[in-house]
């Protein structure tokens, strides 16, 4: 159980993040992470109704591209890399930045053993060493917050970038506009992923010609490109942002439901054809990833929900939480005289 109010660090939960360098194992890791994400999304859909899940846990906007985008970032797992707000694209970027399926399930189902003890929202998981910044507030909020994270990299002269996944109609909000406008004015190294809804009730920004133009920022539109190409494109976008080019908008054109994870299988075939990953590894990767998620699901049933007092952690440093006086030892009205000279009813 983490101490209340303390920031979660990687060392406290599970193994060290499975984050590879950008070398020979990168594609293997991307595939493994992608198959885990696919299995997790399917699992969440299956257990919805059986366990308490936040509305956003349906992860309806996740697809394999989110994994590749996250893999294009500098993920170090030691607090020195890029930072990412997975937002509604969780769990894909969350896993890519080093979280395990069990940790994610603990978190999203509000278990006491989860990263914030069941206190935060379903997307609200911050893990600074891993570079994860949890979401909070309405859509658009995190574009503001991550703009500040990007500005911090720039002001300290550090070669890092911030990545934020926004979903649905976040681009319709004032918060999104203010965050992007500020980041553009500051030329901050920020990558903002806009997930265009397939059937928007009203025409919204990601469907328009070049929503980056008004902000003077670069727009990268992603369709159903091979993931290996997408990896390069986002990598170049990151370099552009780091090189002083300022924010990059990444527009995800919606995919049909059945196409959401197709990119993974395409990548497997590409790796097989070009000999990028050993055949034996490619054969066992999907099964191993799904096995991990199945194991995490079985384990989840033994993970406890937090006790009531666990939720009463301080919201300020060093603060004493005072439970309602009805849960203390109230002084009976007939015994009021003499009262506790310094206490009265509330201790």
């Amino acid at each position: 159980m983490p101490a209340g109010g303390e920031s979660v660090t990687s060392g406290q939960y599970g193994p060290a993040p499975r984050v590879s360098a950008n070398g020979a194992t990168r594609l293997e890791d991307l595939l493994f992470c992608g198959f885990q994400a696919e299995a997790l999304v399917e699992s969440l859909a299956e257990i919805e109704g059986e366990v308490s899940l936040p509305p956003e846990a349906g992860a309806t906007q996740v697809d394999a591209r989110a994994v590749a985008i996250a893999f294009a970032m500098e993920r170090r797992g030691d607090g020195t890399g890029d930072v990412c707000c997975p937002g509604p694209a969780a769990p894909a970027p969350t896993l890519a930045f080093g979280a395990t399926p069990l940790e994610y399930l603990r978190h999203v189902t509000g278990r006491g053993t989860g990263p914030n003890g069941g206190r935060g929202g379903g997307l609200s998981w911050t893990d600074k060493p891993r570079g994860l910044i949890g979401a909070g507030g309405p859509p658009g909020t995190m574009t503001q917050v991550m703009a500040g994270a990007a500005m911090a990299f720039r002001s300290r002269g550090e070669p890092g970038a911030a990545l934020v996944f926004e979903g649905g109609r976040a681009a319709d909000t004032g918060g999104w506009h203010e965050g992007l406008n500020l980041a553009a004015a500051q030329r901050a190294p920020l990558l903002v992923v806009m997930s265009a809804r397939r059937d928007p009730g009203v025409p919204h920004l990601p469907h328009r010609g070049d929503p980056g133009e008004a902000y003077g920022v670069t727009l990268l539109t992603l369709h159903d490109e091979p993931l290996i190409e997408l990896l390069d494109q986002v990598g170049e976008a990151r370099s552009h942002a780091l090189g002083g080019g300022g924010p990059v908008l990444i527009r995800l054109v919606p995919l049909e439901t059945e196409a959401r994870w197709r990119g993974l299988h395409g990548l497997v075939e590409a790796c097989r054809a070009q000999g990028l990953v050993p055949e034996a590894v490619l054969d066992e990767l999907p099964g191993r990833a799904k096995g991990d998620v199945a194991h995490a699901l079985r384990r989840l049933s033994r993970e406890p929900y937090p006790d009531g007092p666990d939720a009463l952690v301080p919201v300020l440093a060093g603060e004493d939480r005072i439970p309602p006086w009805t849960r203390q030892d109230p002084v009976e009205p007939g015994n009021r005289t003499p009262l506790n000279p310094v206490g009265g009813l509330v201790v």
Partner: protein
Amino acid sequence: MSERPPHVSKTQAGEPVTFLEAISEALWEEMERDESVFLLGEDIGIYGGAFKVTRDFLDHFGSGRVVDTPISEGGFTGAAAGAAHMGLRPVVEIQFMDFISPAYDVITNYIATSRYRGSGALPLVIRGPVGGGNRGGPFHSQNVEMAFFHTPGLKIVYPSTARDAKGLLKSAVRDDDPVLFEEHKGLYRAPYLREVLPDDDFVVPIGEARVAREGSDLTIVTYGMMVHRALDAARLLESDGIDVEVLDLRTLLPLDEARIVASVQKTGKLLIVHEDTRTGGIAGEIAMRVNERAFEWLDGPILRVTSIDSPVPYSSSLEDYFLPAVEDIVTAGRYLGRY
């Protein structure tokens, strides 16, 4: 980097400072002390701020630490949260605190909940001018504390003297939790508040009220501009034989309940005075706490003197009627004195 300008060197020179100069000195010294401290807000750089609190800061500290922002209170307050996640200590200026409302979402939903959500504390300060009496009308005169008082995870500071303004602002910058720092613009350049401050790195702890005047017959709990009205009233009530104790809260959240209770236990009577409007004002919370903790010591009803439940009027005659006056405090004090 340029030399320290004279208007932020008065304490070093042994000269008295105004309330505003005390705030400028606090910011300057904290930025010199800690490179992670930086400022962002509208017109705080080139223009030096609407009230010139940050005059010459840009030249000295550079645009990386004095960030002129677009007019987007939500955007730059949210960005401050992101920078705080990254280990910086942002100080946000809201040009007039009336305009903090667009940032209400990110402050209450994101910033205030961060520690509780396990996302880590967010050490940032949101500061700016509040209060009426300057003929600013409804949109440049509000007191905003109670819009945030109900939000767990925030601290709210509202000083009334130059010494407290400097010492509390330094504490706020060093605090690991988010602090809302209200500065009554009527105090900014008030001549009667000029004082010589200690030329050392003093801080005033957040969460501690101050006895501004000792007394034995009646406690007035107040803060900000109303501290000075209450002190004026106390001097007038003295001629009626009523010995008034004035307690300056200084910090509204967390509330210094212990000092309030101790004072009421001494005097047996309580009058709460605030410039904020009546309904939902802090007087209600203080009255309830005294009811819980010191009911047996009360020798009279708990009363309050506040502004009228209305937007702040523009016309001078209306605004004077709207705001609590010394005469109102005296009237309430006399009533309680006779009770």
